[in-house]
């Protein structure tokens, strides 16, 4: 069946791929998965992006480091209002968009729709109405190539629970966006318990978020966040998949080697701490 990654060679009745990569077959569909390709958004992917500009009743969000590739839009109806109320967005809301999200803010959102044809997606529409999505503050942003992040069940994970070495008791939340953006912050703990109980009240969540934003991070928390960031950088440098398990392994290795946060990015140390991840692949 004709897809988008290959062409037919009429003479020999062969199919020739037009790009390099691994071949994947599903029934009669043949796909060529490229190792380094631009992020192609699918509905339901969680992403981490940055606000580039404000247009009429929507924000323009960029999902890559370069703000022109992969433009996406987050409409005004796609966010939760700060007071938590559910109502129609009025013109007053449209005029005060800047108070909610400014240019340069980092947000987490989900892809709602990809309109139009094409690999990169014609027009990507986001929405940030679920509990996990919204403005991200008081944390650290890392950008990695999008192909290092595999699609999994939970993209927003909490690390540093009991039994995990290297965290010194600090719990850290890592949000892995499918577009390659990663956000690290200290864990907003109450969110976990509420998610289990099944009924999440929006106002409570908003309060937790603002608390988290306003509270200053202590030195220990900042150290651990920095360690996690360096761990991710290390994984990026050795081209290893960024998964929670890999991050945990690197943190454990760092604790065993006993180096400081700054030393983690030295080439020899990187080789050392990422040895464990290489052994498995």
């Amino acid at each position: 069946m004709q897809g988008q990654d290959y062409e037919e060679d009429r003479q020999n009745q062969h199919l020739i791929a037009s790009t390099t990569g691994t071949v994947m077959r599903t029934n009669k569909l043949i796909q060529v998965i490229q190792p380094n390709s631009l992020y192609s958004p699918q509905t339901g992917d969680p992403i981490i992006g940055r606000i580039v500009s404000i247009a009429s009743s929507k924000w323009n969000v960029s999902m890559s480091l370069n703000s022109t590739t992969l433009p996406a839009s987050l409409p005004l109806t796609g966010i939760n209002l700060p007071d938590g109320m559910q109502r129609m967005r009025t013109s007053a809301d449209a005029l005060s968009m800047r108070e909610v999200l400014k240019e340069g803010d980092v947000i987490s959102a989900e892809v709602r729709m990809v309109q139009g044809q094409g690999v990169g997606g014609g027009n990507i529409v986001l929405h940030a109405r679920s509990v996990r999505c919204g403005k991200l503050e008081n944390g650290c942003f890392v950008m990695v190539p999008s192909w290092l992040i595999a699609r999994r069940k939970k993209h927003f994970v909490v690390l540093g629970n009991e039994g995990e070495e290297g965290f010194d008791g600090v719990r850290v939340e890592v949000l892995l966006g499918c577009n390659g953006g990663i956000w690290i912050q200290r864990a907003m703990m109450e969110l976990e318990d509420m998610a289990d109980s099944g009924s999440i009240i929006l106002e409570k969540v908003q309060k937790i978020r603002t608390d988290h934003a306003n509270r200053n991070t202590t030195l220990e928390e900042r150290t651990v966040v920095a360690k996690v960031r360096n761990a991710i950088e290390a994984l990026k440098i050795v081209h290893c998949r960024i998964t929670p398990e890999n991050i945990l392994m690197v943190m454990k290795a760092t604790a065993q080697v006993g180096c400081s946060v700054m030393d983690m990015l030295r080439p020899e140390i990187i080789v050392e701490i990422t040895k464990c991840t290489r052994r498995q692949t």
Partner: protein
Amino acid sequence: MPTVVFSFSKKKCEEIAHMLQSLDLNTAAERNSAHLFAIQTMKRLSPKDASLPQVVATCEMVKRGIGVHHGGLLPILKEMVEILFSRNLIKVLFATETFAMGVNMPARAVVFNSIRKHDGTRFRTLEPGEYTQMAGRAGRRGLDKVGTVIMCCFGEEPPPQLMLRNMLTGSSTRLSSQFRLTYNMILNLLRVEDMTVEGMIKRSFSEFATQRALTTNEYPKLLKRGTKALAKLEEEFVRDADIRIGAEDISHYYALSFKLLSSTSEGLNCLLSAVGNTAGGSLVPGRIVLVTSARKKGLVRSPAIVVQPPQISSTTKAVSSPAVCIALFPNSYDHVIDDNKPKPKEFHLNYIGTYKNRKYLYTHVELDEILFISQIKHKIDPRTLYKQESSLGRAHVGGASRVTNSFFSAKPMTRQVDDFGFGNLKARGKEGSRTVEDQSIEKVISLLVEAEAMEDSCSLDVLPLKECSKGGAFQGDDAFRLGDLSNQIINFAAELRTYKSHFHPNLLKHYTAVEKKESLSATVTALRHLLSNESLQLFPDFLQRKSLLKTLNYIDENDTVKVKGRVACECNTCEELIVTEMVFEGLLNELDPPEIVAALSALIFQEKTDVDLDPEIPERLKLACEAMRKIALNLGQLQNEHGLMIDPLEYCNSSLKFGLVHVVYDWALGVPFSNICQLTSVQEGSIVRCITRLDELCREVRNCARVVGNPTLYRKMEEASVAIKRDIVFASSLYVT
């Protein structure tokens, strides 16, 4: 006037309206306005369509003030009839029950052509709710003083009064959950991070009752308390292990006793329902049985003699009153006399007596407290041993229990002369001479002590329940089951005696401790199960569907949605699995747009037609339809294998209906509507509805093509959409101007 006549079949509506061809109910002015409106409606249609037979007939009828409304009409005609009716230009309207659901169409009178209808599975009378809905159309607010409802009775006599009363005054149908798990929903929920399918199921109406009970009964708190208490008991148990010398195997002993108790009770139940209240001689008075009821009564492995067999209610065949026995307490039993409670009278229930330093108890023995029945049977006279309380003031259900000895005993140790011929017996005097009862009770106790000794030394023989089953009316498997059970009982009993605990003098205390622990643990497990996901009604269904999706490669082992899954998410209108398989098998690749649309119509069209695949359609299309059928059969088969109760053939036939394939093919090619109507017996309204839904499906398949990355299919679907969107099928609604 105006009146609505409800019939329950479209054909009937047409027939009746046809019969009134000569009737004219409109004045000249009204006829004019109706005519004008009809012409306005016609303007929206192309001239060819305006000459369709249905259109012409309806317009003609409408001018005379008669209207017809049912699902087979073209939508634009339906709207026209509705608007004219609301304007009072139609005096009599023949409709099906869908008209009752319409907004703002009241009439002065409502006529029911019949009160029975076919609801898809069977022919039945109207439900009260449906009746109310339809009859409620009668009477226009502000215009009529009363609304009239007339029921036609075409038979000899009117319908029975009871049926009518139920229909008119009965309560409407209860709300029941129609929540169904579909693959589309499962896949969409698996894509989103926040929601889980279990959460969705928990919030549906079907789980409303159970979830509310969980919160009101505070099961989570109970569970926490129970787990804590259980942990404490376990600790205690381990701590006291050194006290239990000689009875280390008490836990296994308990488990085995439990199994034996349940087997015996099942066997006895079976016998009781088949052969009568003495269970074929096993529970006849004088029989020695071994009972265990540690916590409630303080008996463990205690011999007991049956004094009165259980009573069975003749109506329900269940035990209405358990057997009464005299049980011997173990040596270690410590009887605490509670002075506050009323002392039970001698020879009555719950009486505890002493003889030669052994205590005995009159008690009810439930079937699940009997360890096993021994072969020993003594001759005793139950009437001297046991005196039942009188039954005055107690109502017996079914009246099956006969009270043999009912008399009040004013003072203990005195007897009344009764009719059963105990004439010789002397009344007890104060000198202390023994009465017959004392003698018999002493005899009984010694028998029991003897039985206990026998059990300790050489073990009592177990009565095989099989032998008691003679002369009973058994059903089918019951006889085999009884045989199995009786063998099981004998084996278990023999095994029981291999445990050291069986002969331990302090067995009662240890057994009670274990019983407490085990029963609490059972309660905790039951609570935990209730609160978990497994107790959701739809959960097994969900697991089966998920495993099917994994087999078909829609999701991977971690429940992440793959390409096929994402394609299936796009399909909302019809069977998503079949469409996805079609796309991935490349079925739609060689077909051109009209053929694609025709093939897809099989998924949308849901009515029964006799004609299957028309032989006049092109070869490629026929092959495609055959392939679709194969896919459907395959899917049905797979679903069956995964445990979903779906018959493959029935699945295939219900999801694929090829009746309109030819029609849609011709329509997509550009054939005018009048011609395609003649191709089939399906009514015009259904054709129009099918094609409109088909347009929606085309859009979804186009999205699927985008997800997959197939631009040719994308373009083909767009062409197909354009090809079917024309003329009368897509004429805009009259309500939207």
